[in-house]
């Protein structure tokens, strides 16, 4: 099977800092791949390169065998790559329903119709409601997004991601900043998405999540890949253990 996402020798340099160093990823369709690494390893930067927010210094990004290096983020998004962010990234003063509805609308080609009424596109609203059910936010449709509890905001983000019907989802620390009690509900949502056959690339810190749901784990340190393999292989790798223990002898 061909890779849905490939990076070839992807490198980005910010001034003197080599943030991502020759990273070559191969993500196969329908798999769940995690990217881990200590703080500052370049995980989020790697995501930003893949989805077009940064342009690489060298190297290429291929999505569905198409070279997408240098395309603007909205174009890449429309090709079928969805992205969630490490810091909560929603439309704060719009309702929960409207947040998801906007994500649904982004995939329909309504174009720049500025004299039609948004409320006349009932199918968007229906679909948005269905998605809110999937991520466990039913009954909160009319709440303003910024008054949601943190865990619910993360669920809303995942809902927005689902609404874009992307084949590949990039999840940047979906449980970041979440209280311990909220984590299982979000993992549950992620597992359900995985079960629908979507390809997921996730950055995460919490080892128990990574070990529980990943097919493949890639370990970054100082921008470079130092290990790759199944969760069990990676957990046993001495290099990985030293990276996580700050280079102390193990």
């Amino acid at each position, binding site marked *: 099977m061909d890779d849905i996402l490939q990076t070839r020798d992807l490198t980005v340099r910010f001034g003197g800092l080599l943030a991502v160093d020759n990273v070559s990823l191969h993500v196969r369709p329908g798999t769940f791949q995690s990217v881990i690494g200590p703080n500052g390893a370049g995980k989020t930067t790697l995501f930003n390169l893949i*989805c077009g927010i940064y342009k690489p210094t060298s190297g290429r990004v291929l999505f569905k065998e198409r070279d997408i290096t240098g395309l*603007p*983020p*909205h174009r890449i*998004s*429309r090709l079928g790559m*969805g*992205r969630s*962010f490490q810091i909560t*990234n*929603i*439309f*704060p*003063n*719009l309702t929960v329903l*409207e947040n998801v*509805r*906007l*994500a649904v*609308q*982004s*995939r329909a080609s*309504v174009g*720049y*119709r*500025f*004299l*039609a*009424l*948004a*409320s006349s*596109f009932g199918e968007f609203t229906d679909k948005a409601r269905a998605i809110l059910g999937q991520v466990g936010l039913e009954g909160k449709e009319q709440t303003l997004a910024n008054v949601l509890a943190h865990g619910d905001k993360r669920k809303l983000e995942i809902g*927005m991601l689902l609404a*874009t019907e992307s084949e590949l989802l990039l999840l940047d620390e979906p449980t970041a900043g979440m209280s311990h009690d909220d984590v299982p509900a979000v993992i549950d949502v992620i597992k359900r998405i995985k079960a629908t056959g979507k390809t997921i690339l996730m950055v995460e810190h919490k080892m128990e999540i990574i070990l529980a749901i990943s097919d493949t784990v890639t370990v970054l340190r100082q921008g470079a890949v130092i290990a790759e393999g199944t969760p069990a292989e990676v957990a046993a790798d001495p290099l990985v253990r030293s990276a996580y223990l700050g280079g102390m002898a193990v």
Partner: protein
Amino acid sequence: MMLKRIKADRWIIAVLLLLLLLPLPKLLAANGLIAADAVNWPPIHYLKRSTDVFVWAVVAVSYDILIGFTGIVSFGHSLFVAVGAYSVAIAVMKLGLSPVVGVLAAVIASALISVVVGSLSLRLKGHYFAMITLAFAEVGHVLALKLSQWTGGEDGLSVRVPLWLANRTNDYYLGLLFLAVIFFTVRRITESPTGRVLAAIRENEHRAQALGYDVTAYKVGAMTISGVIAGLAGVAMATIDTQFAIASLATSGPTIEVLLMTVVGGVGTLTGPVLGAAMIRLLSFALPGLQDISPLFARWQLFLGLIYVGTVMFLPDGIVGSYRTRVKTAFQRIFTPG
């Protein structure tokens, strides 16, 4: 509570309508439908001041598309008012064309300039964007001064309008109709799929982009719609209001006045900017007249400044915005369980 608000709103609307229709007998008289000498009320200056309010209210509504619904702050917005005013003035006075051609020219010119200014400046954000728009407006100002064989330079261009437009009662109703059409069109736009995307951009630009929306294209679109409306307001200014095109329209002064109207009335509310336009225009007309009472009123802008500071401090959502939030929170307090 909600019912009470609708009731209160209805009263406000009814009183406003009554006020706006006061000059109706005069309209009939002006067009020979009833005996003309029977009606000499309301006086001309009432009609003139009202027409002026209508025209500036349109500018404020167009500004609200940018600041309130898309979240971009331009310091060069009145450039488009100047473009509209000069388009019709030059068409009529320099080229001897019909005012209708002037209106078309104004729409085309303000659309083109919006697209050019927008695509060149909207890649920048916040202060940088604001500064660039200020620079563009200043270029317009200088051009209007220097191309004096076309623009009349410092003196500006006075527009000789057809006889039926020289009638202040007709001007009043045209201005009112103009404001009503623009107001409801803009409200419709904000409720359209495109309008919702603009709100999304205002709320979180990066998220909108990550969802696949071409943020720059939407912003240029918003700026074009807003620019064309401001251009039409310029046409109105040159035909039914001051009947004059003057270079100072393109300076930051009028833009800041429009910003003031929008902020005082309530950003993103549409009715707020209309209310703000009425307040600011009437005050800036009335305050200088109070100089006999106190020399302080010679510095009347001081009072506008106080109103602005007061609004930002005590009514950060503006008059209409605060009214709406207050009613809404009272409503939620009563009906939200827990």
